[in-house]
């Protein structure tokens, strides 16, 4: 990000603040003191303005289990507020890639990586990184709904409690707000103290989504989030993801090509341990550059 020299702006007489480069809102009085500053207003409108466009980036990321290389040299950026679909046949390393992004693989025996992953420009493996805070910011939803064996309400606020984001009566507010956000409130408001396992599979997955959202993540990783759900629930979850996208950055593994097409902005195609192709979803599906991608998206392999 370019920081315009203060003198240039005043001397050139260009339209204040709107010309060329951007100011960094430093709070120090600018030389053009008479003119109202536009930047703070813009910053307030879009707090992300000063941050890198890519929330998550990987640079030369190579992932291995013991001596087996699962993926090699992946360079990829995930743009803020977008949905990226990860597609490819089973065993092509989609889950491994996804689970690396919130360091869920770190403890897996034999896992090794090269290269780097950055979150807001900082390596997720940088010394001094707070792993728990990283996982608060990069949440995860699994293939099979996995509510905890506690009441529905306690499930929603489990992470909020762990991170001490709220306590006491505030927890009820958080629970209601998040359940409303995923559209589950009407269905469960009378049985907040019941077991979550009485809910349908789709409702359980929504509960897990509410639980993940409750800690206020920036990025949400979803590993085949609808593959154990019925078509109606799937459609509902898809619509919900589309709604979440501008505020959150979503990375979704899916086996459902139609789903990838419907919900994602960008698509990454993994095959045989490689990231074969990535780009805007329309392009990957309609004008794939690689013949393997074409064979996969037209249903001839996988």
């Amino acid at each position, binding site marked *: 990000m370019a920081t315009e020299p203060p003198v240039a702006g005043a001397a050139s007489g260009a339209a204040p603040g709107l010309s060329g480069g951007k100011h960094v809102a430093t709070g120090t009085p600018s030389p053009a003191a008479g003119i109202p500053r536009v930047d703070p207003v813009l910053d307030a409108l879009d707090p992300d303005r000063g941050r890198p466009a890519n929330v998550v980036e990987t640079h030369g990321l190579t992932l291995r289990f013991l001596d087996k290389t699962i993926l090699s040299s992946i360079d990829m950026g995930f743009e803020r507020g977008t949905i990226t679909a990860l597609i490819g046949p089973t065993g092509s390393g989609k889950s491994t890639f996804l689970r690396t992004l919130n360091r869920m693989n770190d403890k897996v*025996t034999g896992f090794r990586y090269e290269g780097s992953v950055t979150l807001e420009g900082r390596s997720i493996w940088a010394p001094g990184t707070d792993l728990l805070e990283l996982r608060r910011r990069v949440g995860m939803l*699994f293939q099979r709904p*996995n509510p905890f*064996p506690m009441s529905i309400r306690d499930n929603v606020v489990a*992470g909020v409690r*762990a991170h001490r984001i709220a306590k006491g009566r505030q927890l009820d507010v958080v629970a209601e707000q998040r359940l409303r956000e995923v559209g589950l409130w009407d269905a469960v408001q009378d049985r907040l103290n019941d077991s979550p*396992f009485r809910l349908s599979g789709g409702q359980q997955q929504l509960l897990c989504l509410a639980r993940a959202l409750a800690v206020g993540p920036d990025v949400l990783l979803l590993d085949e989030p609808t593959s154990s759900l019925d078509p109606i629930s799937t459609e509902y979850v898809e619509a919900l993801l589309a709604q979440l996208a501008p505020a959150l950055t979503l990375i979704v593994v899916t086996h459902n090509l139609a789903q990838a097409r419907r919900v994602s902005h960008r698509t990454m195609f993994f095959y045989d341990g490689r990231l074969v192709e990535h780009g805007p979803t329309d392009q990957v599906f309609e004008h794939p550059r690689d013949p393997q991608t074409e064979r996969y998206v037209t249903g001839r392999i996988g």
Partner: protein
Amino acid sequence: MPRKRRRVVFTVLFRGGTFAALALVLAPAAWLLASVIAKAVPHWRWNVLWTALTPTGGGLLGPILGTLILMAGVLVVAGTVGVLAGLHLAEMATPRRSGADGGTVLRMASDVLSGFPSIVLGYVGYVALVVGLHWNYSLLPAVLILSLMVVPYIAKSTETALRQVPTAYREGAEALGMATGYSLRKVVLRTASPGIVTGLLIALAIAGGETAPLLFTAEFSRTVWTGAFVHAHGFGYLTYVVYTFWDTPSKSANYLSYDAALILIVMVLVLLVVARLIVARSQRYSEGRTR
């Protein structure tokens, strides 16, 4: 057709086999229970519960209290050590580089310990604690030796219960950014608690029903417990009464023997019922219960 007939025959044989096995387990238990009740109830008097033993008869206050105190001591000592050992084996022992489970040495030691005959443990207690440390026949050596006996059992049941907690819960907790210890307390242990509690209570029942190691460490005494942990002159407990009083010439001592057996059985039943209740209560939110 013959294939179908074979299947039917097999099914019938299998059913018969399982039924016979069930009967083999149930019949002796029922017979035991019935005979103890038959022997104890006709001459039952309630003041057995609150009068002390005398050389000629009296009641079972001392032995009842003794057994309860032994169980409480075992719960504290073996419960703590056993649950922590199980926790270590299931959660903390670092895996081998080959990927195999860690804690091999501790697990093997525990298995070996559980293989010792209880009377050998009693003798060890006698040599090391009663004589070696000059503790004499008293509460502490008895509790320690009984604990030594049931710790492997508690560790094993705790480890098993923890290993049965679905990976999905652990991963869910991890992905939410819960610290390992926090998720252990709030998610994992909560899920495993029925198994752990059941293991603990059964261990207590085993400890309450032991005689051999107590002969070496507590001997026996008619006096009600005075509060001493060591340097006592023996210590009363129910199994001793069952074991020695039944063939003494004194009729009232014979009666006390059956009374003691009945009380022990009732204690064990209470423990089992309590275990059931705790399990039912903590499983309100478990995955298996959807109704």
